[in-house]
């Protein structure tokens, strides 16, 4: 289980972000988690308009600022400097999370430490002593957003499967994940468990199964 880091297997991070973007319909309101999820914004397919919400108080987040146009008070949830598109709006934290909690955001794309076959998500704490627990808006997002996509490497850096029967890490939310986009495959969380939707080029279902610590149903 160590060959997962071979650059030749599966989607690159860019390809993966692009793959997620394909599944975001025109006109969607989308919240992107910190890190890999942020990249999804770069790949909106031609002809679509997608509105990005960043929970620190902006609807209509645009790309990073041009040199010289940076404003340290115009940032995203990852505290990186961004821009605001025409048609953007600023609001305070309670209004921002009203959008989340009140189910107004269509899709949220999050990173993950573990995802269970029941759709449980763990992405905020290892629970280890000495770990500084930091939750941010993750629990609000999984509780409030209609559709939760996870974008993640299929395994951890040390080769452990992230798709499991039961999460060992403290949960972010129970039965919340709808779909997983990993470097190896697109996988749906169904009432029957994980179901393969699509394989990355050159990857077989057995490649994925070997790296998944739960049952993986074939497409259909």
């Amino acid at each position: 289980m160590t060959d997962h880091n071979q650059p030749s297997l599966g989607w690159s991070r860019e390809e993966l972000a692009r793959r997620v973007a394909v599944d975001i319909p025109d006109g969607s309101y989308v919240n992107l988690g910190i890190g890999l999820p942020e990249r999804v914004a770069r790949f909106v397919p031609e002809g679509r308009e997608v509105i990005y919400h960043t929970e620190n108080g902006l609807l209509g987040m645009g790309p990073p600022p041009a040199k010289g146009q940076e404003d340290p008070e115009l940032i995203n949830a990852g505290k990186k400097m961004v821009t605001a598109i025409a048609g953007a709006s600023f609001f305070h934290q309670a209004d921002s999370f009203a959008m989340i909690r009140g189910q107004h955001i269509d899709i949220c794309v999050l990173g993950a430490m573990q995802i269970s076959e029941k759709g449980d998500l763990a992405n905020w704490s290892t629970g280890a002593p000495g770990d500084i627990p930091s939750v941010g808006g993750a629990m609000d997002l999984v509780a409030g957003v209609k559709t939760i996509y996870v974008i993640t490497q299929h395994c951890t850096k040390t080769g452990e499967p992230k798709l499991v029967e039961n999460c060992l890490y403290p949960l972010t939310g129970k039965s919340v994940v709808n779909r997983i986009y990993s470097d190896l495959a697109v996988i749906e969380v169904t009432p029957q468990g994980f179901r393969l939707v699509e394989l990355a080029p050159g990857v077989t279902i057995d490649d994925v199964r070997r790296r998944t610590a739960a049952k993986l149903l074939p497409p259909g």
Partner: protein
Amino acid sequence: MINKCTASLAEAVADIFDGATVMIGGFGEAGSPIELIHALIDQGAKDLTVVNNNTGSGHVGLAALIANGQVRKMICSYPRTTGSEVFPALYRSNRIELELVPQGTLAERIRAGGAGIPAFYTATSVNTPLAEGKELRTISGREYVLEFGLQADFALIKCACADRHGNLTYNKTARNFAPIMAMAAQTTIVQTGALLDLGAIDAEAVVTPGIFVDRIVTVSDPAQESKLVAEGRRYP
């Protein structure tokens, strides 16, 4: 006549007492009222409970207040930010308390505190360790956790423009927690980038109405936290 302008930062924070609960605006450095925090360091009040989304970075602003031993407890959602060293070290050695609250629940608790709502239900954190020991209730078939409003003795916030009545506007995502903290604190102390004539702020575009503001100090050229941190600056 109503004139909430205060002569100095020192005067604005003079009555913050030992043991006070202090809400401090900002999400990372955006909206952090760094000059007011430094005035609070000079003032020296201790045993504070501080409410902020994070715990500061480097050795200036909120991180410096914590490093100075003035904070007994942090209530926040994301203590582990990039560049955050002071809080993690104290936390690992059990020298500071932490109440970890999901960001949206934190925002809603502050808003509730300001709006006279003593408690509310939310689905956030249900089935997670952060709901442990809390009251659950099923409403229309879904499980929710009971959360209580949060109030403070003082709020320290930063805005872009103010008038003498205390009407405020903000700069972009620096708005974040400031409007709701202004509502939830007994005494709201504001540092503003500019003091405008009464009536200069469009009544349709006021974000924080003056009723929520008690004191205003003009800090026309506030320090930028990330720049201070990059320069390795410390306060005091």
